[in-house]
């Protein structure tokens, strides 16, 4: 339970600074610092249990089918990292209180920092691998927000994007790797994964899994070649750099490597992957750091170098190497953060971070100088400092390597890197505080940092000193249990006394120190050479790569999806024919047992007319109007077919839809040229004809095969239950509004959305001038012929009467809301055509969009009415009533549902029609319709 509290307290605390952004900085710092401090104290209270070797687990199942659960775990390694996160977090919050003095953005900063703390704690305390991944991605996201904190600056935005792409991409690879790992181990819970080490390493998928997991870890921990995002993340405010990019987030990858150590490490592949990467990172970081003139840039590259160092030690894999790695991790956090804080203070005091201009600050900030001397000496690895010990441990381990090639290369390499690190450590101290007088500072004389601002810095410096003077104490209390957890075995305590007398490491340290000092003294000629080299900005290269990748994928996509409807249809048909045909080819017999029914002349006639009309559309398709007419013939004969096979509802619906479709298509056609050009070539015709022919024959054959086989359809159920269940004798209508009412509700919603979409599209649409036709000179003068107006006026009440009749009888006889709606819409369309848009709109008092919405609402409310009586949604009821003259009749609640359908259909159709008509008027679009 306490484990859950440790994680949740920062999350809950993140809301307070966000909500109270206008409060003064000190109060926000208090709101932020208290949760961090609380988590820290909770962790300290759990120390005795963890020291005793207990592993605390807290679990709550979430999605057990996927193996995902809220599971937290606290062992030595987790405790070490969690304490580092919360403790460092508290100090950073305190430091930020002075950094953000006078700025209004501290509220956002504090909530983001607490959110980050929550995410980071989630990574280190998580027991379930997938659960940990969620937090992994969350840290990438929050880091993105924090790097881009000063979002006005373009450099910050670009840097943030680059970091998100690299760390997010690594997260994807990590997901794949962890999924594989979970499958190989049989579970995603760490307790089980860590015990399955032998099985995992023997699995054939091990190389793939290891590469993926390591790639994820390397991108997060800025290993070569993914280290480029870290220097460009330095555009973040200094507290962010001190917290995320030196002490916590970049260590997440290394944490993962240590955490999964018992499961996936100690193989030759591990050594071959991790050690070279670590070594490259170590050297690249150390070498480039020297040439950075920006303080934070130097510190960024030195962080990269130290991360490479820790990775190298983890790669060496022996328990002693792991001890060295974790010890150095602690030391690094303790000396890097105060150096970053120093950078921030110098930046705010002088207005510049350029070390070529900042010199000789010892006169102005003596206290800061003293406080900085300790971490800088630790970073250099000077005797009596923590860094000295960890460097020596590194040298000792590097000499233990037994592989033939590496056994000479690694110690030499490590000494060289040590040399560079001494050089840049001297530089960061000497160049800032000594080295002559300040040159051209924006703020001169430099402002004094307040005493209280240096308190966090002082605490950390004290920490460095403690570790330096009493290493064994710190190791036993804090690091040893972490090493035990990471190796999975009990490792004997590190012998620090033996460290000071080892011969070769001592020689290596001395070489590094003297060499580094000489390198530093020779810096000026080296800077001159460096400044003559061409400038390379990693952000530019990164963005160039991204742009090229995007352009390439766009080209590939457009090759396939070029916007041509013919292409899509052809692809769909070919795929269908291919897959379906391939499956169906195994049929030995097309015809089934059912005998064919006798053929009558009318059916043959109708079928042949449909075929001929369809062919006619193809033949006429260049002349659009004749093609439309042929299409109308098809529609009419489909209606006759429905009538022939006694499907009256379908016939009525097909008829009504046909009328509306013709009108709407005419509206659209009037804006296209009368004839479409001849664009296809003979090979293309042949191809299209073949594809269409095979598809048609295939579907026809399939229908034949299905129809000649006996099938038990669901229609029996509906036929049997229409009257007792729905109260209506028209089975089709009962299915639509009762049995499958939910389906119909969805369909009218879609219809409404389509109509509103047409409305939105045509709202301010100004189409180009129409193509001039030959017939233009012969237009008849009269826009509204009298005969048509008269007939239209007579038809309207009759059509409405018929519409009402069809609507009311729909439940028991062919009819229903949909057909009635279409009849009404057709009659109203006639008014629009006969009287003109303006005339009709004056008389059309109902707005269309409310009509659509009202229809859907009515249908939905009718369904919800069933809830009032305790029945499921859309349960309908019916009853029989009798009126004096009318007699007995049946009334169902589905009638209201049908009314909703009716209203929606009328509204949608008229909305589409009126808006398309408004577009096509020669006078141009006018007032909004609907």
């Amino acid at each position: 339970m306490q484990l859950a509290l440790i994680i949740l307290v920062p999350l809950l605390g993140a809301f307070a600074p966000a909500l109270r952004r206008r409060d003064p900085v000190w109060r926000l710092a208090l709101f932020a610092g208290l949760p961090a401090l609380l988590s820290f104290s909770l962790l300290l209270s759990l120390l005795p249990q963890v020291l005793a070797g207990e592993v605390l687990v807290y679990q709550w199942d979430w999605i057990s089918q996927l193996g995902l659960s809220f599971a937290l775990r606290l062992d030595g390694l987790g405790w070490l990292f969690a304490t580092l996160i919360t403790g460092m977090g508290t100090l950073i919050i305190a430091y930020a209180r002075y950094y953000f003095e006078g700025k209004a953005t501290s509220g956002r900063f504090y909530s983001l920092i607490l959110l980050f703390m929550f995410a980071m704690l989630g990574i280190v305390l998580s027991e379930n691998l997938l659960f940990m991944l969620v937090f992994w991605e969350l840290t990438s996201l929050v880091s993105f927000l924090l790097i881009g904190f000063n979002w006005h600056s373009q450099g910050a935005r670009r840097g943030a994007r680059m970091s998100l792409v690299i760390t997010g991409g690594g997260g994807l690879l990590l997901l794949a790797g962890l999924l594989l790992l979970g499958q190989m181990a049989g579970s995603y819970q760490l307790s089980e994964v860590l015990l399955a080490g032998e099985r995992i390493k023997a699995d054939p998928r091990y190389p793939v899994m290891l590469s993926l997991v390591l790639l994820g870890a390397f991108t997060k921990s800025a290993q070569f070649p993914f280290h480029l995002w870290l220097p460009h993340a330095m555009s973040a405010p200094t507290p962010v750099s001190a917290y995320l990019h030196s002490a916590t987030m970049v260590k997440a990858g290394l944490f993962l490597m240590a955490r999964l150590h018992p499961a996936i490490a100690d193989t030759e592949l591990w050594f071959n992957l991790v050690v070279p990467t670590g070594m490259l990172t170590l050297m690249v970081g150390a070498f480039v750091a020297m040439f950075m003139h920006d303080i934070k840039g130097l510190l960024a590259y030195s962080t990269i170098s130290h991360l490479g160092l820790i990775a190298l030690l983890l790669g060496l894999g022996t328990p002693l190497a792991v001890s060295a790695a974790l010890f150095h991790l602690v030391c690094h956090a303790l000396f890097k953060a105060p150096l970053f804080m120093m950078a921030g203070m110098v930046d705010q005091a002088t207005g510049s971070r350029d070390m070529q201009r900042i010199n000789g600050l010892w006169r102005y900030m003596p206290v800061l100088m003293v406080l900085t001397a300790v971490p800088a000496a630790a970073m250099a690895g000077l005797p009596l400092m923590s860094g000295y010990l960890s460097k020596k441990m590194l040298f000792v381990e590097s000499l233990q390597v037994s592989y033939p090639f590496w056994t000479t290369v690694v110690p030499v390499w490590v000494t060289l890197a040590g040399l560079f690190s001494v050089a840049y450590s001297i530089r960061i101290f000497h160049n800032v505080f000594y080295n002559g007088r300040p040159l051209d500072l924006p703020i001169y004389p430099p402002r004094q940092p307040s005493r209280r601002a240096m308190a966090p810095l002082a605490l950390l410096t004290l920490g460095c000193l403690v570790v330096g003077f009493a290493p064994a104490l710190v190791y036993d209390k804090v690091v040893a249990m972490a090493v035990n957890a990471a190796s999975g075995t009990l490792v004997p305590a590190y012998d620090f006394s033996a460290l000071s007398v080892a011969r070769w490491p001592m020689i290596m340290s001395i070489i590094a120190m003297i060499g580094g000092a000489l390198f530093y003294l020779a810096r000026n000629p080296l800077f001159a050479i460096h400044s003559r080299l061409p400038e390379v900005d990693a952000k530019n290269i990164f963005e160039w790569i991204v742009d090229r990748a995007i352009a390439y994928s766009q080209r590939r996509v457009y090759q396939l999806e070029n916007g041509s409807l013919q292409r899509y249809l052809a692809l769909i048909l070919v795929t269908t024919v291919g897959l379906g045909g391939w499956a169906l080819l195994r049929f030995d017999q097309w015809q089934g047992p059912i005998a064919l029914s006798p053929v009558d002349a009318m059916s043959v006639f109708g079928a042949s007319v449909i075929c001929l009309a369809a062919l006619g559309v193809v033949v006429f398709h260049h002349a659009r109007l004749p093609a439309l007419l042929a299409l109308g013939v098809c529609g009419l004969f489909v209606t006759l077919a429905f009538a022939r096979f006694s499907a009256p509802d379908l016939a009525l619906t097909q008829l009504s839809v046909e009328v509306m479709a013709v009108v709407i298509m005419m509206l659209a056609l009037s804006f296209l040229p009368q004839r479409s050009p001849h664009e296809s070539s003979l090979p293309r015709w042949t191809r299209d004809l073949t594809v269409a022919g095979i598809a048609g024959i295939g579907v026809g054959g399939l229908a034949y095969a299905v129809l000649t086989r006996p099938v038990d359809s669901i229609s029996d159920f509906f036929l049997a239950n229409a009257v007792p269940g729905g109260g209506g004798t028209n089975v089709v209508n009962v299915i639509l509004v009762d049995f499958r009412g939910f389906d119909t509700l969805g369909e009218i919603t879609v219809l409404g959305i389509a109509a509103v979409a047409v409305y939105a599209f045509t709202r301010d649409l100004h189409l180009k001038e129409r193509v001039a036709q030959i017939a233009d000179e012969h237009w008849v003068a009269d826009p509204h012929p009298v005969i048509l107006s008269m007939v239209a006026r007579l038809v309207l009440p009759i059509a409405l009467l018929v519409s009402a009749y069809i609507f009311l009888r729909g439940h028991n006889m062919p009819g229903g809301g949909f057909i009635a709606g279409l009849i009404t819409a057709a009659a109203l369309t006639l008014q629009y055509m006969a009287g003109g848009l303006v005339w009709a709109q004056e008389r059309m008092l109902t707005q269309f969009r409310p009509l659509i919405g009202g229809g859907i609402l009515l249908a939905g409310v009718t369904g919800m009415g069933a809830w009032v009586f305790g029945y499921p949604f859309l349960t309908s009821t019916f009853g029989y009533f009798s009126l004096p003259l009318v007699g007995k009749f049946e009334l169902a609640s589905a009638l209201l549902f049908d009314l909703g359908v009716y209203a929606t259909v009328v509204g949608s159709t008229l909305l589409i029609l009126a808006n398309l008509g408004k577009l096509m008027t020669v006078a141009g679009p006018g007032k909004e319709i609907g």
Partner: protein
Amino acid sequence: MIAWVIPIALGLFSLGMLFCLYRLAVGPDIIDRVLALDTLMINGIAVIVLADIQMALGIIFEAALLIALMGFIGTVAMTKYLLRGDVIE
């Protein structure tokens, strides 16, 4: 008697439909084609009524009613377009 009257009537109306289809395919002017479609629909009314009587269903008549009531709306739209270039003005 009604048993052989209806097939003959159906046959004659089908012949009428064939003539309309011929005019739709051949009709030199566009208006011939439009009128052919309209006449086809009228024939359709007759065919539906006769088919319903023959099959003795009694429920298909409304389809004929609807064709009679609404069938001309499509023709009106096309004719308006031919006369004025605009369907709704």
